[in-house]
């Protein structure tokens, strides 16, 4: 829950502009990007995701570092990814 997970923005959902499809470690899920309204991310850009919401934009280097950090955490990240896979935000 406290983990910030990096995701690459793939596309915005056409009918719901505050929702975007992102790629997180190969898992594609929909997240809410409404909290970045002041400076919305574009497809191809990276965001840090907390409990289904993008809280900040990050660059690719930071995304790689954050991912490495998470993979090092082990079970907690595995649990979070599993939860994300089960997530069905719409």
């Amino acid at each position, binding site marked *: *829950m*406290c*983990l*910030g997970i990096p995701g690459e923005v793939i596309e915005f959902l056409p009918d719901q502009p505050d929702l975007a499809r992102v790629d997180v470690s190969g898992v594609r899920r929909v*997240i*809410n990007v*409404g*909290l*970045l*309204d*002041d400076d919305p991310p574009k497809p191809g850009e990276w965001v*840090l995701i*907390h*409990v*289904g*919401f993008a*809280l*900040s934009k*990050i*660059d*690719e*280097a*930071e995304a*790689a*570092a*954050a991912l*490495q*950090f998470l993979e*090092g*955490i082990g*079970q*907690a990240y595995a*649990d*979070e990814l599993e*939860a*994300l896979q*089960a*997530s*069905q*935000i*719409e």
Partner: protein
Amino acid sequence: MRFVDEFRSADKAHALAAKIAGLCEPGRQYKLMEVCGGHTHTIYKHGLEDYLPEQITLVHGPGCPVCVIPMGRVDDAMALASQPDTIMTSFGDMMRVPGSQGSFFDAKAQGTDIRMVYSPLDSLKIARQNPDKRVVFMAIGFETTTPSTAMTVLRAAAEGLDNFSIFCNHVTIIPAIKAILDSPDLRLDGFIGPGHVSTVIGCRPYEFIARDYGKPVVVAGFEPLDILQSIYMLMVQLSEGRSEVENQYTRVVPWDGNLAALTVINKVLELRPYFEWRGLGFISHSAMRVRPEYAKYDAELLFEVPGVRVADPKACQCGEVLKGVLKPWECKVFGTACTPETPIGTCMVSPEGACAAYYNFGRMNRRRVVEVSIS
């Protein structure tokens, strides 16, 4: 990989450690608190204390939101969950936190409808799919998760969804830091500020620590070198007699935070007069509740909440650990009666809790290890 190496290089770590050691005044002891449980995790995973001179002690702070939920609130949530036609939804982290009658997992095993969700928005979906049930989201977390809860309430309101509510346990980090600064138990020299929380609140809220208490604060990232760099920045300030708020984690944390997130929080939630923290007791204005405008989404108003106060188990010393007065291994039940599999206290439940981090990485008190190796 080349990206990550920048944050992990052992050579850089040793170079930083040497610079840190060079800044220590002879005979002076330094106590630096890392507020965030994520930092605690990095420190123990990478053995960062082993890089530091003996004069510097890292003290673990209260920044694990699961750890600070008092037993009474878990019992209250359980009472909500056991109401007829009710579905309780919760982050996975919360599922093993013990109340006086067991945890969410225990209740679920006995047939109470408690479902794990990744996001409050998943909880909203469960509400849409179950119009004949009342769906309650167990909202917990510091400012990192608070905006998500607030956005979800706004979404429920926009959809006119009437069977969704939140049991709000969101806490705010600043009053907890102030309580620790005002506590006579502990003298601290500086703070490693939380990374993700600051993404939302920015760096300004820490200014009172530097101004009124004369302690430096450096907001830090989560990589091992981020933390060493932050310790170095704190030590430079201390050696120059300065106390300022600095941001080491500029690649993620904007100085002013996330204004959209703060606006949403403020729209839906307001400060409670006081809230109980496990181990720390009641702290003024340290948690959020639903504003009257959104009362129909407030589970505390929709349901009878017992509101009982339950004393922590006598053997458990989470309070001292959360305040940084005790190291986890100094607790009477650490690693014996209290383990991650059968936690007595919350600090052993969450992977970001100080006790779980110690337990999982086998870190013990450095001085004791030195003594053992000499004898």
